[in-house]
């Protein structure tokens, strides 16, 4: 960290006024830059000055910078899945010594069309944040410890459909049998016996809690349902590792299910959400079903086959997938060509419309040529699936990145090596390798037209048009820390490459027609608006 005095090489005016300048000018600058991308803005977190600095792109590679106040001592920042909003959790001033000291808070920056900010005050500082993919809710919960004594089971719920008031946010302490929340998942709307519901699934380090979001703001909300994962007969501690949700038949209201895999047990668990017994405080209740899949599952998903809904579990230990019939726990093992560890459903992209799913399998063992595989569900004689088609690649696929429309049929395959990545075409089932001279960091443009590849800490940057996979090499002056492809008000798009130098700089390119020659560098972004 450096002070602004030392690093404002581009701000000579400030030096002249040094003796009477506000204290913010002496505030430290956090590096590397904490930058986040929204649809049409880059947001820099300037915690020492308690600001969020939004950078908007203008034509001709110009920028417009607007700061917003943020709570003191930012603990966590995240963006919504659609990049429309940014959420910044702040601890406030702990302990508060005066009325001027701030309470913990959540600041939300809505990035479109012009950035605006709202702040929700909390009673306790919490450092973890879960964001509803549907945009209605957010939840803050304890993380690494933000204060001397912390209640790790307190969850603060935000209803983002309305502004802050006396009941928003609302705080809940989930009952604990010794565990504490690790991961929170917002479900889509599920058709439950008492009506449609959205639920918050809380995975602790040893059990699972289910909280009714639609009734969470009632004056006497129903308590959460807690499902313990051990029978109490031994000292095992079974840790949840993933939950998946399925609403079942749209015409039914008693077949919504939650699937769960654990990090250290060979059983997968399904909870069917059925009507609650009389006198229950909740109007639904989970019925528990354990199924041993023969090894520790590395990924699970609800899939649709010719024979109905199944919970698919990848079991690398068996180099297999196991299909679990949730009504009977009957399993069918599907031997795979490699021990794949991850899967993504790609039915919407490559499905035949016949109602059965297609899964993309990846993350097989290194040097096994496992690449990726297309697992087509359905059933043919003698086997509970239609086909498994392998696309052998040299490197292990470590991550799969979605590409937005209009190139939604493409996936970026990030490898565990430093010299290549692949563009996978799901339709043609081809994987085009793209070689690099160093470990690339990839970013897809929200308009689905291009990929940006850069090597963090260097000046190497490239644009890759997805239409023809034509790479355009680019260069920046300072080293690149992160890049963001954002929309401009004029309908164009700009690529903003952030540099963690000085008071944070940025090089701006015309994203649709990138050229180093027409790029423009902007420095001292965090000094603007002080």
């Amino acid at each position: 960290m450096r002070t602004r005095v030392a690093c404002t090489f581009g701000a000579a005016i400030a030096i002249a006024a040094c003796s009477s300048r506000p204290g913010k000018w002496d505030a430290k600058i956090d590096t590397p830059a904490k930058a986040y991308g929204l649809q049409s803005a880059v947001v820099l977190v300037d915690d020492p000055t308690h600001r969020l600095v939004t950078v908007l792109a203008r034509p001709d590679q110009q920028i417009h910078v607007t700061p917003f106040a943020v709570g003191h001592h930012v603990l966590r920042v995240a963006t919504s899945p659609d990049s429309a909003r940014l959420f910044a959790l702040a601890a406030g001033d702990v302990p508060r010594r005066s009325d001027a000291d701030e309470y913990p808070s959540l600041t939300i920056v809505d990035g479109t069309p012009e950035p605006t900010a709202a702040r929700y005050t909390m009673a306790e500082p919490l450092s973890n944040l879960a964001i509803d993919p549907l945009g209605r809710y957010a939840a803050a919960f304890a993380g690494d410890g933000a204060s001397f004594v912390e209640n790790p089971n307190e969850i603060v719920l935000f209803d983002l459909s309305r502004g802050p008031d006396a009941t928003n946010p609302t705080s809940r302490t989930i009952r604990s049998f010794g565990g504490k929340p690790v991961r929170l998942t917002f479900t889509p709307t599920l058709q439950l016996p008492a009506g449609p519901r959205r639920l918050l699934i809380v995975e602790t380090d040893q059990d699972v809690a289910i909280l009714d979001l639609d009734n969470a703001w009632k004056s006497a909300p129903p308590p959460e349902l807690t499902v313990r994962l051990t029978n109490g007969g031994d000292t095992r501690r079974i840790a949840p590792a993933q939950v998946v949700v399925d609403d079942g038949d749209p015409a039914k209201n008693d077949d919504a299910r939650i699937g769960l895999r654990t990090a250290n047990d060979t059983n997968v668990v399904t909870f069917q959400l059925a009507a609650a017994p009389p006198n229950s405080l909740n109007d639904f209740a989970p019925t528990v079903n354990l199924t041993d899949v023969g090894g520790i599952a590395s990924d699970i998903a609800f899939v649709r086959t010719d024979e109905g809904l199944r919970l698919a579990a990848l079991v690398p230990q068996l180099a297999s997938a196991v299909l679990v019939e949730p009504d009977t726990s009957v399993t069918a093992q599907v031997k795979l060509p490699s021990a794949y560890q991850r899967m993504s459903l790609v039915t919407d992209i490559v499905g035949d419309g016949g109602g059965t799913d297609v899964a993309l399998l990846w993350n097989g063992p290194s040097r096994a040529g496992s690449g990726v595989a297309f697992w087509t569900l359905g059933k043919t004689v003698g086997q509970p699936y239609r086909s498994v088609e392998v696309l052998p690649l040299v490197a292990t696929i470590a991550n799969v990145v979605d590409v937005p429309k209009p190139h939604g049929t493409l996936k970026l395959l990030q490898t565990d090596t430093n010299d290549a990545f692949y563009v996978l075409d799901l339709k043609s089932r081809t994987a085009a390798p793209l070689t690099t001279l160093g470990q690339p960091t990839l970013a897809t443009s929200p308009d689905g037209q291009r990929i940006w590849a850069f090597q963090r800490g260097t000046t190497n940057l490239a644009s890759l048009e997805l239409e023809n996979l034509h790479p355009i090499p680019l260069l920046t002056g300072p080293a690149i820390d992160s890049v963001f492809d954002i929309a401009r008000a004029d309908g164009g798009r700009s690529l903003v490459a952030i540099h963690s130098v000085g008071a944070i700089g940025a090089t701006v390119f015309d994203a649709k027609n990138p050229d180093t020659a027409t790029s423009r560098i902007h420095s001292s972004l965090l000094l603007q608006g002080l």
Partner: protein
Amino acid sequence: MRKRGLAATLAAAWALSWGCGAASDNAGANGFGGGADGGTNAPFADGGTLADGGGAFADAPPERETEGDYQSPVATGRFVWVANPTSGRVAYVDATTLEVHTVEAGNGPTYLVAVPDPKDDVALVMNVLSYDATLLRASGGQLSTTTFPIARGSNAWAVSADGRWAIAWTDSTKLAKLDPTQGFQDVSVIDLTGQKPATIVAVGYRPVKLGFSSDGARALAVTQDGISVIDLTQPSPIVIKNVAVSDNPLDDPGSRDVSVTPDGKYALIRRDGKSDVTVVAIDTGALTKVQLGSAVSDLDLSTAGDRALAILRDTSTAAILPIPAIASSPTAFTTVTITGQLVGSASLAKGGKIALLYTNAIPSERLTVLSLDTSQFHTIRLYAPILAALPADDAQNAVVVHDTSGDAGAHPAFSLVPLSGNLPAKIVGTPAPPQAVAISPSSDRVVVSVRDDVTKTYGVYLGKLPSLEVDQLTLASPPIAVGVVAGAGRAYVAQSHAEGRITFIDLSTGKARTLTGFELGSRVVDGSGK
């Protein structure tokens, strides 16, 4: 709403005696009659030495008393109860809501029995390590427990039809490598109302059957020494006499098949290879020998105890013995010769008007339906050898399990058989031998589980009567018992699984729901204070 006891809930249940580890015990809550054999054949049977058999079938082995070897599921009006000897808990599953709860019992809860009760769901579990029994009463959403001491080594229950009395006793046929000094003569008589103290009394050597007179005044223990009579009207239950069942002191008790009328007044004794039936008037001890002229291969008593049916295989004759008249007039029986057929076993339908006659001593595909009122009969040809036949309560249809053992060599199968003789039977081939059968009290549904541990093939069939439509369901684990919870409109299949597994089948839709992990299911906490 008046609840049914188990005897009423399960119209019929049948299971092969292959020791599947079921935690339940015989649950017949009636007296001695009822047409259900008590399984007295097993350890004492005389290996097929039909000394005076003669005739064409003298070399045939004895009939196998398959339908008498119940592994009755422990179900009450609404709940299915399952004991877990390891955890010390008993799980009870609401068959309507599929809600699972567990309750602490004593040490090693193992043998469960349903207790008839007019309004509550009541079960009784024997705790084999703490030498006590726990009465479990579910009433109004609450479960209460009461503990009673019992004799060590008990492993079987008898419960009076009114649910007031229970007797814990030791069925030596379940034990191996017995020493002659092990008499198992201590039986524990428990007044479940608590009005009288639980009392351990000594009965004759190695009891084989326990029951109660229909007026609840006496309990009767069929032993190798005769029938011990326990007076329940005394301040504390006491054995008041022992009634000999043979005038021959050298008579082999192991060859006896003893049936006692529901009112507890008469006992009928069949002996392997003998052509007479001994009728014992328990009040007076008077013995009457009814000479039937040929070896009696089976003897069944009607539910009401007003007549018995003796089968003389060597002459393919059925002898109908009126009770009590036969005790005073030993020739007052009628005979029906089943011309052209070989019959050695009988199954009496509820009501005692219809009997199913067949033989399983040799491969035979013929089932004879005999009206005991008119002595009319007709024979139905089936398409595989018969192992057992179970009539529905309404005597309109029956389930026939086919024999796959030994020389029979047939493919596993069962048949649904209309008993009118006007309609053909439907044979259903199965991938594994039928393991257990249950027929709904309304006689319109049949549940047949199949199990093959070698091929790990497990399944259950739901048959609809009278349409004979059959649906099949694969099971994930070995079935151990089937039953019908009439109050919930569901059948269930209890399965062998470390965490406990039960599959419920909706009798209307055939839709299955499986619960696995009773302890986990019961540990769902909803904050309702339960």
